[in-house]
């Protein structure tokens, strides 16, 4: 569809642009043309209104002869012919209009007077048509760049989507292998405990599957996921693993991306507790402050212990997910001091009510 007809606002602006042209045409007909001012305006206004629409037809030849891919002869022939046809029609319309006006008082000589100005009118018609051709090419360029921009936006949105999908936290397979090994040990020595561990492991896995698909979950749900994870690890590590929690009641309903904290706790176990002969503790602190959620995971570790595999992979993934999701609105700081390791993250609070009032675009991106 013609871009000017697609929006009423654009059409009005276009027609307003023809008002000075109608004035100029009236001047041409009156001063060099010999018509009275009344006659000149009576002819120029309807003619320009008509021609405004005729010139809109230039859109189609412009579409068919794109500037960058058309030969010069083809370009000249197309628009030259277009100008001649359009202007010819215009002149014929002018003569028809003159005859219709001839009956009114003060317009008796208009047919004769106008017939002298027909070459002038024809020339003007050609020029105006060519002007319209130029205008339509500008319009085409604007349209093209707008489309390119939209495509780029779309592409970057898709890329970010893909990134978020790729970054979706996954359960560390070695956690599974080790847990299965523990279950295998228990089947002989303590079958009831083996069954319990199977059920705990199943519970944890089911939760990760269900939650992993959601864009965000309340902190309380993430915490119960962590508890399911710790229940399994507790069987493996026994007394060596101690967990402390200090979570603000107001923080519990704040929304977080699923499986954001579980990797931090797992990291604290693998690089902290598991490396200590007598075990150690993990502390999770969460609070809401000034519309932000602040979470810290701390653990003791052996600064002189052997290096572990996958060092930092889990942390990097959490940092990247935060960055992709919230950009500069989030922060991620990992620090080691003495035998204390600490990861502190902050992210904007998105509780249930805040999300409901979020703009539609944002909600679309989340889902």
């Amino acid at each position, binding site marked *: 569809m013609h871009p000017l007809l697609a929006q009423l606002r654009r059409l009005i602006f276009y027609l307003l642009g023809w008002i000075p042209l109608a004035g100029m045409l009236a001047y041409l007909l009156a001063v060099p043309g010999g018509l009275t001012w009344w006659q000149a305006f009576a002819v120029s206004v309807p003619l320009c209104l008509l021609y405004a629409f005729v010139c809109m037809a230039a859109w189609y030849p412009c579409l068919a002869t794109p500037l960058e891919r058309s030969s010069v002869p083809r370009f000249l022939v197309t628009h030259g012919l277009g100008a001649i046809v359009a202007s010819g029609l215009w002149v014929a319309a002018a003569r028809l209009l003159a005859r219709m006006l001839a009956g009114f008082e003060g317009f008796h000589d208009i047919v004769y007077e106008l017939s002298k100005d027909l070459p002038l009118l024809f020339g003007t018609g050609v020029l105006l048509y060519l002007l319209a051709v130029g205008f339509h090419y500008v319009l085409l360029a604007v349209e093209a760049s707008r489309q390119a921009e939209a495509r780029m936006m779309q592409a970057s949105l898709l890329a970010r989507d893909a990134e978020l999908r790729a970054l979706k936290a996954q359960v560390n397979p*070695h956690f599974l*292998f*080790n847990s*299965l*090994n*523990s*279950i*295998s*040990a*228990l089947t*002989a*020595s303590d079958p009831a405990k083996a069954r319990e561990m199977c059920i705990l492991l199943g519970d944890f896995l089911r939760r990760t599957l269900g939650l992993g698909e959601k864009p965000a979950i309340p902190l309380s749900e993430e915490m119960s996921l962590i508890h399911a994870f710790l229940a399994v690890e507790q*069987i*493996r*590590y*026994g007394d060596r693993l101690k967990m402390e929690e200090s979570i603000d009641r107001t923080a519990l309903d704040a929304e977080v991306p699923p499986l954001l904290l579980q990797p931090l706790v797992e990291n604290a176990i693998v690089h902290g507790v*598991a*490396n*200590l*002969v007598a075990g150690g503790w993990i502390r999770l602190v969460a609070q809401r402050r000034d519309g932000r959620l602040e979470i810290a995971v701390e653990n003791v570790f*052996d600064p*002189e*212990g*052997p*290096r*572990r*595999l996958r060092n930092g992979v889990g942390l990097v993934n959490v940092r990247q997910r935060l960055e992709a999701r919230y950009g500069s609105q989030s922060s991620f700081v990992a620090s080691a001091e003495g035998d204390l390791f600490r990861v502190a993250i902050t992210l904007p609070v998105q509780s249930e009510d805040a999300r409901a009032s979020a703009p539609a675009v944002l909600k679309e991106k989340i889902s």
Partner: protein
Amino acid sequence: MTLPEDRKIRTMIVDDEDLARQVLREFLSKHAEIEIVAECANGFQAVKSAAELKPDLVFLDIQMPKLDGFEVLELIGSESAVIFVTAYDTFAIRAFEVHAIDYLLKPVGATRFEAALERAKERLSGKLPPAPMPAMELAAAARPPQQYLDRIPVRDGSSVFIIPVAKLDYAEAQDDYVALASQGKKHLKQQTISSLEAALDPSRFLRIHRSYIVNLERVAKIEPYGKDSYVAVLNTGLQLPVSRAGHARLRAFLDR
């Protein structure tokens, strides 16, 4: 390492998880020829027990507190046959490069376990050739590329010292051993100076002599010493001989 037919295979289990040790204990209990002499929950304990008990066979976890499995193997040497047991498959190549008998993945299956034990018995009865190189040389050879040592474990009898490389002043070759000088003490380790050189970050440590590697941060100055030869003077005032090739390397480094 060849055993007489009637002797039991003295076996040690090293894993920081009680349940993981339990699986191995259960599998081993079906074999009358196996005697479990020790179970260890960390690397230090493992080295200590190995030094005292000289086991024939060691089941060794890799990721443990204090020392990882490779460090333990490096310290107990090739006196014992080693089977690694871990949840990670990424260490397999490294494990065979240090001539581990086998590499078991957790969860450990009975069939796979029996096959590994069979291989261990063959090795111990002399049907399989023993490791041709000392284990520590192999450990150095099997280090992942682009990754230099950040700590050196050293054994003295049944106790273990960890020397962070930043605290190593210099190393001196002494026959089959290197003497590692750190914080005013010297620790002997059975290793060639060349393999130690290969394992250290070349931008921090330099071989200045056939018998010496020096921590470049410790070098205060280089002084001529007689005709055509030099000494490196450390911060402590100690002088180390510098060979002609070593001097060229040192110059090239200092000019950089």
